[in-house]
Protein backbone atom coordinates (compact mmCIF):
# COMPACT_ATOMS: atom_id res chain seq x y z
CA UNK A 1 0.00 0.00 0.00
CA UNK A 2 2.98 2.28 0.38
CA UNK A 3 6.27 2.77 -1.36
CA UNK A 4 8.20 0.41 0.83
CA UNK A 5 11.51 -1.26 0.24
CA UNK A 6 9.94 -4.55 -0.62
CA UNK A 7 11.71 -6.20 -3.53
CA UNK A 8 9.71 -6.99 -6.62
CA UNK A 9 9.67 -10.71 -7.41
CA UNK A 10 11.96 -11.79 -10.23
CA UNK A 11 9.10 -13.56 -11.91
CA UNK A 12 7.38 -10.25 -12.45
CA UNK A 13 10.51 -8.71 -13.91
CA UNK A 14 10.93 -11.57 -16.32
CA UNK A 15 7.28 -11.46 -17.34
CA UNK A 16 7.42 -7.74 -18.07
CA UNK A 17 10.65 -8.14 -19.98
CA UNK A 18 9.23 -10.99 -22.03
CA UNK A 19 6.12 -8.99 -22.87
CA UNK A 20 8.20 -6.01 -23.85
CA UNK A 21 10.43 -8.09 -26.06
CA UNK A 22 7.48 -9.69 -27.78
CA UNK A 23 5.63 -6.43 -28.28
CA UNK A 24 7.19 -5.21 -31.53
CA UNK A 25 6.66 -8.61 -33.11
CA UNK A 26 3.04 -8.79 -32.05
CA UNK A 27 2.40 -5.22 -33.17
CA UNK A 28 4.87 -4.58 -35.95
CA UNK A 29 3.22 -1.54 -37.47
CA UNK A 30 5.31 1.61 -37.53
CA UNK A 31 2.70 3.40 -35.45
CA UNK A 32 2.74 0.78 -32.71
CA UNK A 33 6.49 0.40 -32.62
CA UNK A 34 6.76 4.17 -32.26
CA UNK A 35 4.26 3.98 -29.44
CA UNK A 36 6.42 1.35 -27.83
CA UNK A 37 9.55 3.43 -28.26
CA UNK A 38 7.94 6.52 -26.77
CA UNK A 39 6.44 4.60 -23.89
CA UNK A 40 9.78 3.04 -23.03
CA UNK A 41 11.54 6.35 -23.53
CA UNK A 42 9.29 8.10 -21.05
CA UNK A 43 9.56 5.16 -18.71
CA UNK A 44 13.33 5.54 -18.87
CA UNK A 45 13.56 9.25 -18.25
CA UNK A 46 10.69 9.02 -15.82
CA UNK A 47 12.67 6.45 -13.86
CA UNK A 48 15.49 8.96 -13.67
CA UNK A 49 13.16 11.45 -12.00
CA UNK A 50 11.74 8.66 -9.90
CA UNK A 51 15.11 7.76 -8.46
CA UNK A 52 15.75 11.20 -7.04
CA UNK A 53 12.15 12.35 -6.64
CA UNK A 54 10.34 9.18 -5.72
CA UNK A 55 12.98 7.17 -3.89
CA UNK A 56 14.89 10.00 -2.27
CA UNK A 57 12.03 12.48 -2.03
CA UNK A 58 13.82 15.36 -3.72
CA UNK A 59 11.19 16.83 -6.01
CA UNK A 60 12.79 18.45 -8.99
CA UNK A 61 11.17 20.67 -11.60
CA UNK A 62 14.32 20.96 -13.64
CA UNK A 63 15.32 17.44 -14.57
CA UNK A 64 15.34 18.49 -18.18
CA UNK A 65 18.65 20.17 -17.41
CA UNK A 66 20.38 16.78 -17.29
CA UNK A 67 18.42 15.54 -20.27
CA UNK A 68 19.34 18.51 -22.42
CA UNK A 69 22.97 18.44 -21.40
CA UNK A 70 23.14 14.80 -22.41
CA UNK A 71 21.46 15.50 -25.74
CA UNK A 72 23.82 18.33 -26.56
CA UNK A 73 26.92 16.60 -25.27
CA UNK A 74 26.46 13.50 -27.37
CA UNK A 75 25.38 15.48 -30.44
CA UNK A 76 28.28 17.90 -30.20
CA UNK A 77 30.77 15.06 -29.75
CA UNK A 78 29.34 13.43 -32.82
CA UNK A 79 29.00 16.46 -35.07
CA UNK A 80 31.93 18.60 -34.07
CA UNK A 81 34.45 16.00 -32.98
CA UNK A 82 33.47 13.07 -35.13
CA UNK A 83 33.04 10.63 -32.28
CA UNK A 84 31.00 7.50 -32.76
CA UNK A 85 27.41 8.17 -31.80
CA UNK A 86 27.39 5.15 -29.52
CA UNK A 87 30.01 6.86 -27.40
CA UNK A 88 27.33 9.44 -26.96
CA UNK A 89 25.73 7.22 -24.35
CA UNK A 90 28.59 7.26 -21.86
CA UNK A 91 29.37 10.90 -22.75
CA UNK A 92 25.80 11.96 -22.07
CA UNK A 93 25.72 9.94 -18.87
CA UNK A 94 28.83 11.73 -17.66
CA UNK A 95 27.53 15.13 -18.72
CA UNK A 96 24.20 14.55 -17.03
CA UNK A 97 25.89 13.29 -13.89
CA UNK A 98 28.21 16.28 -13.81
CA UNK A 99 25.40 18.79 -14.05
CA UNK A 100 23.40 16.78 -11.55
CA UNK A 101 26.31 16.81 -9.16
CA UNK A 102 26.93 20.53 -9.48
CA UNK A 103 23.30 21.44 -8.96
CA UNK A 104 23.07 19.00 -6.06
CA UNK A 105 26.17 20.26 -4.29
CA UNK A 106 25.15 23.90 -4.65
CA UNK A 107 21.54 23.37 -3.65
CA UNK A 108 22.05 20.94 -0.82
CA UNK A 109 25.00 22.84 0.65
CA UNK A 110 22.67 25.80 0.85
CA UNK A 111 20.19 23.56 2.63
CA UNK A 112 17.49 23.85 0.01
CA UNK A 113 14.60 21.45 0.33
CA UNK A 114 11.07 20.89 -0.82
CA UNK A 115 9.63 23.63 -2.99
CA UNK A 116 12.79 25.74 -2.87
CA UNK A 117 14.73 22.87 -4.35
CA UNK A 118 12.06 22.31 -6.99
CA UNK A 119 12.13 25.95 -8.01
CA UNK A 120 15.90 26.26 -8.10
CA UNK A 121 16.21 23.25 -10.36
CA UNK A 122 13.71 24.95 -12.64
CA UNK A 123 15.89 28.04 -12.68
CA UNK A 124 19.05 26.04 -13.44
CA UNK A 125 17.33 24.38 -16.39
CA UNK A 126 16.24 27.80 -17.61
CA UNK A 127 19.81 29.06 -17.45
CA UNK A 128 20.97 26.16 -19.58
CA UNK A 129 18.19 26.73 -22.06
CA UNK A 130 19.05 30.40 -22.41
CA UNK A 131 22.76 29.72 -22.77
CA UNK A 132 22.36 27.06 -25.45
CA UNK A 133 19.90 29.34 -27.19
CA UNK A 134 22.41 32.17 -27.33
CA UNK A 135 25.68 30.47 -28.13
CA UNK A 136 26.74 29.53 -31.63
CA UNK A 137 28.70 26.51 -30.43
CA UNK A 138 25.41 24.83 -29.71
CA UNK A 139 23.72 26.15 -32.80
CA UNK A 140 21.81 28.80 -30.93
CA UNK A 141 18.09 28.92 -31.44
CA UNK A 142 18.34 26.87 -34.59
CA UNK A 143 19.49 23.83 -32.71
CA UNK A 144 21.49 21.00 -34.17
CA UNK A 145 20.62 18.61 -36.92
CA UNK A 146 22.13 15.15 -37.08
CA UNK A 147 22.55 13.99 -40.65
CA UNK A 148 20.49 10.91 -41.40
CA UNK A 149 22.65 7.94 -42.13
CA UNK A 150 20.88 4.83 -41.02
CA UNK A 151 23.23 2.13 -39.89
CA UNK A 152 23.60 0.27 -36.64
CA UNK A 153 27.15 1.45 -36.12
CA UNK A 154 25.92 5.00 -36.50
CA UNK A 155 23.31 4.57 -33.77
CA UNK A 156 20.58 5.11 -36.32
CA UNK A 157 18.27 2.41 -37.53
CA UNK A 158 16.37 2.20 -40.79
CA UNK A 159 13.81 0.06 -39.04
CA UNK A 160 12.27 1.53 -35.89
CA UNK A 161 12.55 -1.78 -34.18
CA UNK A 162 16.26 -1.18 -33.81
CA UNK A 163 15.57 1.88 -31.68
CA UNK A 164 12.95 -0.09 -29.82
CA UNK A 165 15.42 -2.62 -28.58
CA UNK A 166 17.97 0.00 -27.66
CA UNK A 167 15.49 1.88 -25.52
CA UNK A 168 14.20 -1.39 -24.13
CA UNK A 169 17.69 -2.21 -22.96
CA UNK A 170 18.08 1.21 -21.39
CA UNK A 171 14.69 1.00 -19.75
CA UNK A 172 15.47 -2.47 -18.44
CA UNK A 173 18.71 -1.13 -16.98
CA UNK A 174 16.82 1.64 -15.25
CA UNK A 175 14.36 -0.86 -13.82
CA UNK A 176 17.25 -2.97 -12.61
CA UNK A 177 18.71 0.10 -10.96
CA UNK A 178 15.42 0.85 -9.24
CA UNK A 179 15.16 -2.73 -8.10
CA UNK A 180 18.68 -2.57 -6.73
CA UNK A 181 17.68 0.54 -4.80
CA UNK A 182 14.79 -1.36 -3.24
CA UNK A 183 17.16 -4.02 -2.01
CA UNK A 184 20.25 -2.10 -1.10
CA UNK A 185 21.57 -0.17 1.83
CA UNK A 186 21.79 2.95 -0.34
CA UNK A 187 18.13 2.70 -1.26
CA UNK A 188 17.11 2.22 2.37
CA UNK A 189 19.10 5.30 3.31
CA UNK A 190 17.45 7.29 0.54
CA UNK A 191 14.04 6.21 1.79
CA UNK A 192 15.03 7.32 5.27
CA UNK A 193 16.14 10.68 3.92
CA UNK A 194 12.87 11.03 2.07
CA UNK A 195 10.79 10.26 5.13
CA UNK A 196 12.66 12.23 7.74
CA UNK A 197 16.05 13.83 7.30
CA UNK A 198 16.67 14.52 10.97
CA UNK A 199 16.04 10.94 11.96
CA UNK A 200 18.22 9.78 9.11
CA UNK A 201 21.06 11.97 10.33
CA UNK A 202 20.57 10.81 13.89
CA UNK A 203 21.05 7.26 12.69
CA UNK A 204 24.38 8.08 11.12
CA UNK A 205 23.42 8.73 7.51
CA UNK A 206 25.44 11.41 5.73
CA UNK A 207 22.39 13.02 4.21
CA UNK A 208 24.24 15.53 2.05
CA UNK A 209 26.51 12.94 0.50
CA UNK A 210 23.73 10.49 -0.26
CA UNK A 211 21.56 13.19 -1.81
CA UNK A 212 24.41 14.23 -4.08
CA UNK A 213 25.01 10.60 -5.02
CA UNK A 214 21.41 10.10 -6.03
CA UNK A 215 21.44 13.24 -8.15
CA UNK A 216 24.61 12.03 -9.89
CA UNK A 217 22.84 8.79 -10.71
CA UNK A 218 19.63 10.46 -11.77
CA UNK A 219 21.49 12.97 -13.90
CA UNK A 220 23.37 10.22 -15.68
CA UNK A 221 20.17 8.44 -16.64
CA UNK A 222 18.45 11.59 -17.84
CA UNK A 223 21.56 12.40 -19.81
CA UNK A 224 21.43 9.08 -21.60
CA UNK A 225 17.78 9.74 -22.33
CA UNK A 226 18.87 12.93 -24.03
CA UNK A 227 21.35 11.05 -26.19
CA UNK A 228 18.72 8.55 -27.26
CA UNK A 229 16.29 11.35 -28.01
CA UNK A 230 18.81 13.06 -30.25
CA UNK A 231 19.47 9.88 -32.17
CA UNK A 232 15.80 9.04 -32.55
CA UNK A 233 14.63 12.43 -33.74
CA UNK A 234 17.90 13.60 -35.32
CA UNK A 235 17.17 17.15 -34.23
CA UNK A 236 17.57 18.99 -30.96
CA UNK A 237 17.04 22.61 -30.02
CA UNK A 238 17.02 24.51 -26.72
CA UNK A 239 13.28 24.64 -26.42
CA UNK A 240 12.75 20.95 -26.98
CA UNK A 241 15.57 19.56 -24.85
CA UNK A 242 15.75 22.25 -22.19
CA UNK A 243 12.13 23.32 -22.16
CA UNK A 244 10.10 22.87 -19.03
CA UNK A 245 7.72 20.46 -20.78
CA UNK A 246 10.12 17.53 -20.50
CA UNK A 247 10.68 18.19 -16.80
CA UNK A 248 6.96 18.11 -16.29
CA UNK A 249 6.56 14.92 -18.32
CA UNK A 250 9.27 13.14 -16.32
CA UNK A 251 7.54 14.16 -13.12
CA UNK A 252 4.05 13.32 -14.36
CA UNK A 253 4.98 9.87 -15.54
CA UNK A 254 6.45 8.96 -12.16
CA UNK A 255 3.86 10.59 -9.93
CA UNK A 256 0.94 9.23 -11.88
CA UNK A 257 2.38 5.76 -12.13
CA UNK A 258 3.70 5.65 -8.61
CA UNK A 259 6.63 7.57 -7.20
CA UNK A 260 9.13 5.41 -5.40
CA UNK A 261 8.02 2.20 -7.04
CA UNK A 262 9.97 0.20 -9.57
CA UNK A 263 7.33 0.03 -12.29
CA UNK A 264 5.52 3.29 -11.57
CA UNK A 265 7.27 5.18 -14.35
CA UNK A 266 6.47 2.41 -16.84
CA UNK A 267 2.80 2.41 -15.88
CA UNK A 268 2.70 6.17 -16.09
CA UNK A 269 4.53 6.21 -19.39
CA UNK A 270 2.20 3.66 -20.94
CA UNK A 271 -0.76 5.73 -19.87
CA UNK A 272 0.66 9.01 -21.07
CA UNK A 273 1.86 7.60 -24.38
CA UNK A 274 -1.59 6.08 -24.90
CA UNK A 275 -3.34 9.33 -24.12
CA UNK A 276 -0.98 11.18 -26.37
CA UNK A 277 -1.42 8.86 -29.33
CA UNK A 278 -5.15 8.41 -28.91
CA UNK A 279 -5.87 12.12 -28.67
CA UNK A 280 -3.65 12.79 -31.63
CA UNK A 281 -5.49 10.23 -33.71
CA UNK A 282 -8.99 11.22 -32.64
CA UNK A 283 -8.79 14.97 -32.74
CA UNK A 284 -6.68 17.73 -34.12
CA UNK A 285 -7.10 19.70 -30.95
CA UNK A 286 -3.80 20.94 -29.63
CA UNK A 287 -3.22 20.51 -25.97
CA UNK A 288 -5.92 17.97 -25.16
CA UNK A 289 -3.50 15.32 -23.98
CA UNK A 290 -1.85 17.76 -21.61
CA UNK A 291 -5.21 18.80 -20.22
CA UNK A 292 -5.75 15.17 -19.40
CA UNK A 293 -2.28 14.81 -17.89
CA UNK A 294 -2.80 17.88 -15.72
CA UNK A 295 -6.16 16.65 -14.50
CA UNK A 296 -4.71 13.21 -13.83
CA UNK A 297 -1.97 14.74 -11.72
CA UNK A 298 -4.45 16.63 -9.59
CA UNK A 299 -6.68 13.58 -9.21
CA UNK A 300 -3.77 11.32 -8.34
CA UNK A 301 -2.36 13.69 -5.74
CA UNK A 302 -5.77 14.04 -4.17
CA UNK A 303 -7.04 10.50 -4.22
CA UNK A 304 -4.23 8.13 -5.08
CA UNK A 305 -1.09 9.76 -3.81
CA UNK A 306 0.91 6.60 -4.25
CA UNK A 307 0.10 6.54 -7.92
CA UNK A 308 -1.75 4.11 -10.12
CA UNK A 309 0.43 1.23 -8.97
CA UNK A 310 -1.57 1.42 -5.79
CA UNK A 311 -4.57 0.07 -7.66
CA UNK A 312 -2.64 -3.06 -8.51
CA UNK A 313 -1.36 -3.47 -5.00
CA UNK A 314 -4.74 -3.02 -3.38
CA UNK A 315 -6.25 -5.78 -5.42
CA UNK A 316 -3.52 -8.15 -4.39
CA UNK A 317 -3.69 -7.18 -0.73
CA UNK A 318 -2.26 -9.85 1.56
CA UNK A 319 -4.20 -10.90 4.60
CA UNK A 320 -2.64 -8.40 6.93
CA UNK A 321 -4.21 -7.04 10.03
CA UNK A 322 -4.50 -3.53 8.65
CA UNK A 323 -7.75 -1.77 7.96
Amino acid sequence: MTSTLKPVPWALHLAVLALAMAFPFVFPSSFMVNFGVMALFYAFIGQSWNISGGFAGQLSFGHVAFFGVGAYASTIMQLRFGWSPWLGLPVSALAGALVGGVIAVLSFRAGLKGSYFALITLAFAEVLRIVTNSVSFTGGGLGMLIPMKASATNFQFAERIGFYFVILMLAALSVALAEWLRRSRFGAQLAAIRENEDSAKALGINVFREKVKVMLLSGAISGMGGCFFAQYFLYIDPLVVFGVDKSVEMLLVSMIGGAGTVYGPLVGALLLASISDITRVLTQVQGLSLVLYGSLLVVIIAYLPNGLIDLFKRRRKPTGGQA
Partner: protein
Amino acid sequence: MMLQVTGLTKIFGGLRAVDNASLGVDEGRIVALIGPNGAGKTTLFACIAGFLPLNAGRVEFLGRDITGLPVHEIARAGMVRTFQITQPFAKLTVHENIAVGAYQKFSNRAQAWAHAQAIAEQVGMAHMLAQPASELTVAGRKRLELARALATSPRLLLLDEVMAGLNPSEILEIIAIIRQIRDSGVTVLLIEHVMHAVMSLSDHIHVLSYGKIIAEGSPQQVVSNQAVVEAYLGRGSTEAADAAAGATHA
Protein backbone atom coordinates in the same frame (compact mmCIF):
# COMPACT_ATOMS: atom_id res chain seq x y z
CA MET B 1 33.81 9.31 31.63
CA MET B 2 32.22 8.23 28.40
CA LEU B 3 30.54 11.56 27.85
CA GLN B 4 31.81 14.79 29.30
CA VAL B 5 29.91 18.02 28.73
CA THR B 6 31.64 21.14 29.98
CA GLY B 7 30.20 24.62 30.27
CA LEU B 8 27.65 24.18 27.52
CA THR B 9 25.71 27.32 26.73
CA LYS B 10 23.02 27.77 24.13
CA ILE B 11 21.40 31.12 23.52
CA PHE B 12 18.33 31.77 21.38
CA GLY B 13 17.98 35.49 20.77
CA GLY B 14 17.80 36.82 24.27
CA LEU B 15 17.08 33.55 25.98
CA ARG B 16 19.74 31.41 27.62
CA ALA B 17 18.14 28.05 27.00
CA VAL B 18 21.15 26.25 28.43
CA ASP B 19 23.46 28.11 30.75
CA ASN B 20 26.95 26.86 31.45
CA ALA B 21 25.80 23.29 31.94
CA SER B 22 28.27 20.55 32.76
CA LEU B 23 27.56 16.89 33.18
CA GLY B 24 29.29 13.56 32.88
CA VAL B 25 28.12 10.07 32.05
CA ASP B 26 30.11 7.04 33.11
CA GLU B 27 30.28 4.04 30.86
CA GLY B 28 27.76 1.33 31.61
CA ARG B 29 25.49 3.58 33.67
CA ILE B 30 21.96 4.75 33.29
CA VAL B 31 22.02 8.47 33.86
CA ALA B 32 18.95 10.69 33.97
CA LEU B 33 18.53 14.33 33.11
CA ILE B 34 15.49 15.74 34.85
CA GLY B 35 14.00 19.12 35.49
CA PRO B 36 10.76 21.05 35.23
CA ASN B 37 9.18 21.70 31.86
CA GLY B 38 11.03 24.24 29.79
CA ALA B 39 14.25 23.74 31.70
CA GLY B 40 16.18 23.17 28.48
CA LYS B 41 16.67 19.43 28.60
CA THR B 42 15.83 18.68 24.99
CA THR B 43 17.89 21.67 23.89
CA LEU B 44 20.82 20.27 25.82
CA PHE B 45 20.36 16.92 24.13
CA ALA B 46 20.18 18.58 20.74
CA CYS B 47 23.43 20.42 21.43
CA ILE B 48 25.23 17.33 22.65
CA ALA B 49 24.15 15.28 19.64
CA GLY B 50 25.14 17.98 17.18
CA PHE B 51 21.73 19.21 16.06
CA LEU B 52 22.31 22.71 17.38
CA PRO B 53 25.49 24.70 17.41
CA LEU B 54 26.80 25.66 20.83
CA ASN B 55 27.42 29.22 21.90
CA ALA B 56 30.02 28.02 24.39
CA GLY B 57 31.33 24.83 25.92
CA ARG B 58 32.69 21.47 24.93
CA VAL B 59 31.39 17.98 24.41
CA GLU B 60 33.79 15.07 24.70
CA PHE B 61 32.74 11.58 23.84
CA LEU B 62 34.98 8.55 24.31
CA GLY B 63 37.90 10.87 24.87
CA ARG B 64 37.32 12.74 21.62
CA ASP B 65 36.19 16.34 21.25
CA ILE B 66 33.01 16.13 19.21
CA THR B 67 31.90 19.71 19.67
CA GLY B 68 30.54 21.04 16.39
CA LEU B 69 30.80 17.80 14.49
CA PRO B 70 27.94 17.03 12.08
CA VAL B 71 25.14 14.92 13.47
CA HIS B 72 25.83 11.86 11.39
CA GLU B 73 29.46 11.73 12.44
CA ILE B 74 28.52 11.88 16.08
CA ALA B 75 26.02 9.12 15.45
CA ARG B 76 28.67 7.04 13.75
CA ALA B 77 30.98 7.59 16.67
CA GLY B 78 28.39 5.76 18.74
CA MET B 79 26.11 8.40 20.24
CA VAL B 80 22.55 8.10 18.96
CA ARG B 81 19.55 10.09 20.10
CA THR B 82 15.81 9.62 19.93
CA PHE B 83 13.32 12.44 19.53
CA GLN B 84 10.76 13.61 22.03
CA ILE B 85 8.18 13.99 19.30
CA THR B 86 8.65 10.74 17.47
CA GLN B 87 9.84 10.95 13.90
CA PRO B 88 9.32 7.55 12.34
CA PHE B 89 9.88 6.82 8.68
CA ALA B 90 6.18 6.86 8.13
CA LYS B 91 5.87 5.06 4.85
CA LEU B 92 8.25 2.26 5.80
CA THR B 93 7.32 -0.76 7.84
CA VAL B 94 8.55 -1.32 11.37
CA HIS B 95 11.09 -3.81 10.09
CA GLU B 96 12.35 -1.40 7.46
CA ASN B 97 12.57 1.41 9.98
CA ILE B 98 14.74 -0.60 12.30
CA ALA B 99 16.76 -1.89 9.37
CA VAL B 100 17.80 1.67 8.54
CA GLY B 101 19.41 1.76 11.93
CA ALA B 102 20.88 -1.69 11.46
CA TYR B 103 22.42 -0.64 8.17
CA GLN B 104 24.70 1.57 10.20
CA LYS B 105 26.47 -1.51 11.39
CA PHE B 106 25.82 -3.99 8.59
CA SER B 107 26.09 -3.13 4.93
CA ASN B 108 24.69 -6.47 3.86
CA ARG B 109 20.91 -6.57 3.54
CA ALA B 110 20.42 -10.02 4.98
CA GLN B 111 22.51 -9.22 8.03
CA ALA B 112 20.88 -5.84 8.55
CA TRP B 113 17.43 -7.34 8.38
CA ALA B 114 18.28 -10.17 10.69
CA HIS B 115 19.76 -7.73 13.20
CA ALA B 116 16.68 -5.53 12.89
CA GLN B 117 14.49 -8.51 13.66
CA ALA B 118 16.58 -9.37 16.70
CA ILE B 119 16.29 -5.81 17.97
CA ALA B 120 12.56 -5.86 17.36
CA GLU B 121 12.32 -8.99 19.47
CA GLN B 122 14.39 -7.36 22.17
CA VAL B 123 11.97 -4.44 22.48
CA GLY B 124 8.89 -6.54 22.02
CA MET B 125 7.91 -5.47 18.51
CA ALA B 126 8.47 -8.74 16.73
CA HIS B 127 4.78 -9.23 16.02
CA MET B 128 4.41 -5.94 14.17
CA LEU B 129 7.34 -6.06 11.81
CA ALA B 130 5.22 -5.75 8.68
CA GLN B 131 3.14 -2.87 9.92
CA PRO B 132 3.64 0.56 8.35
CA ALA B 133 5.10 2.90 10.93
CA SER B 134 2.35 5.42 10.25
CA GLU B 135 -0.19 3.03 11.75
CA LEU B 136 1.51 2.64 15.11
CA THR B 137 0.13 3.98 18.36
CA VAL B 138 2.12 6.47 20.41
CA ALA B 139 3.55 3.66 22.49
CA GLY B 140 4.50 1.79 19.35
CA ARG B 141 6.22 4.80 17.89
CA LYS B 142 8.21 5.42 21.04
CA ARG B 143 9.31 1.86 21.03
CA LEU B 144 10.19 2.06 17.35
CA GLU B 145 12.24 5.15 18.02
CA LEU B 146 14.12 3.25 20.67
CA ALA B 147 14.55 0.16 18.52
CA ARG B 148 15.83 2.10 15.56
CA ALA B 149 18.48 3.83 17.63
CA LEU B 150 19.40 0.58 19.32
CA ALA B 151 19.87 -1.14 15.98
CA THR B 152 22.83 1.08 15.17
CA SER B 153 24.78 -0.67 17.94
CA PRO B 154 25.45 2.55 19.80
CA ARG B 155 27.81 3.01 22.72
CA LEU B 156 25.63 5.75 24.22
CA LEU B 157 21.89 6.10 23.78
CA LEU B 158 20.23 9.47 24.36
CA LEU B 159 16.57 8.83 25.10
CA ASP B 160 14.29 11.86 25.08
CA GLU B 161 11.12 11.24 27.09
CA VAL B 162 10.70 7.79 25.74
CA MET B 163 7.96 7.15 28.28
CA ALA B 164 5.79 10.19 27.64
CA GLY B 165 2.29 9.19 26.73
CA LEU B 166 2.62 5.59 27.87
CA ASN B 167 0.26 3.89 30.27
CA PRO B 168 1.60 2.31 33.49
CA SER B 169 2.02 -1.19 32.12
CA GLU B 170 3.78 0.11 29.02
CA ILE B 171 6.08 2.10 31.28
CA LEU B 172 6.99 -1.00 33.26
CA GLU B 173 7.84 -2.79 30.04
CA ILE B 174 10.06 0.03 28.86
CA ILE B 175 11.84 0.17 32.19
CA ALA B 176 12.70 -3.49 31.84
CA ILE B 177 13.84 -2.97 28.28
CA ILE B 178 16.08 -0.06 29.21
CA ARG B 179 17.66 -2.09 31.96
CA GLN B 180 18.25 -4.89 29.55
CA ILE B 181 19.84 -2.45 27.12
CA ARG B 182 22.22 -1.27 29.79
CA ASP B 183 23.02 -4.80 30.77
CA SER B 184 23.95 -5.58 27.19
CA GLY B 185 26.64 -2.94 27.36
CA VAL B 186 25.00 0.25 26.13
CA THR B 187 25.23 3.37 28.25
CA VAL B 188 22.02 5.34 28.58
CA LEU B 189 21.39 9.02 29.17
CA LEU B 190 17.71 9.74 29.43
CA ILE B 191 15.41 12.71 29.79
CA GLU B 192 12.34 11.67 31.68
CA HIS B 193 9.42 13.08 33.61
CA VAL B 194 8.04 9.81 34.92
CA MET B 195 9.63 10.04 38.35
CA HIS B 196 9.24 6.51 39.58
CA ALA B 197 10.95 5.28 36.43
CA VAL B 198 13.78 7.73 36.92
CA MET B 199 14.17 6.67 40.52
CA SER B 200 14.21 2.98 39.84
CA LEU B 201 16.39 3.08 36.74
CA SER B 202 19.02 5.71 37.33
CA ASP B 203 22.43 5.27 38.79
CA HIS B 204 23.00 9.00 38.66
CA ILE B 205 20.81 12.04 38.09
CA HIS B 206 21.48 15.55 36.84
CA VAL B 207 18.88 18.23 37.44
CA LEU B 208 18.38 21.11 35.04
CA SER B 209 16.38 24.20 35.84
CA TYR B 210 16.18 27.35 33.74
CA GLY B 211 19.08 26.06 31.76
CA LYS B 212 21.39 25.55 34.68
CA ILE B 213 22.48 22.34 36.35
CA ILE B 214 21.32 22.83 39.92
CA ALA B 215 22.08 19.45 41.40
CA GLU B 216 23.41 16.01 40.71
CA GLY B 217 23.85 12.81 42.56
CA SER B 218 22.22 9.51 43.34
CA PRO B 219 18.43 9.34 43.23
CA GLN B 220 18.21 9.54 47.02
CA GLN B 221 20.47 12.55 47.18
CA VAL B 222 18.63 14.41 44.46
CA VAL B 223 15.19 13.76 45.83
CA SER B 224 16.05 15.21 49.20
CA ASN B 225 17.84 18.20 47.71
CA GLN B 226 16.03 21.40 48.62
CA ALA B 227 16.94 23.22 45.46
CA VAL B 228 15.52 20.41 43.38
CA VAL B 229 12.22 20.35 45.21
CA GLU B 230 11.93 24.08 44.88
CA ALA B 231 12.69 23.95 41.21
CA TYR B 232 9.68 21.71 40.72
CA LEU B 233 7.32 23.09 43.32
CA GLY B 234 8.35 26.68 43.62
CA ARG B 235 10.38 28.82 46.00
CA GLY B 236 9.44 28.42 49.61
CA SER B 237 7.81 25.09 49.02
CA THR B 238 10.17 23.26 51.32
CA GLU B 239 9.41 25.68 54.17
CA ALA B 240 5.75 25.39 53.42
CA ALA B 241 6.04 21.62 53.43
CA ASP B 242 7.95 21.72 56.71
CA ALA B 243 5.46 24.11 58.17
CA ALA B 244 2.58 21.91 57.14
CA ALA B 245 4.33 18.85 58.55
CA GLY B 246 5.10 20.77 61.74
CA ALA B 247 1.49 21.95 61.98
CA THR B 248 0.09 18.46 61.70
CA HIS B 249 2.57 17.12 64.20
CA ALA B 250 2.16 19.89 66.65
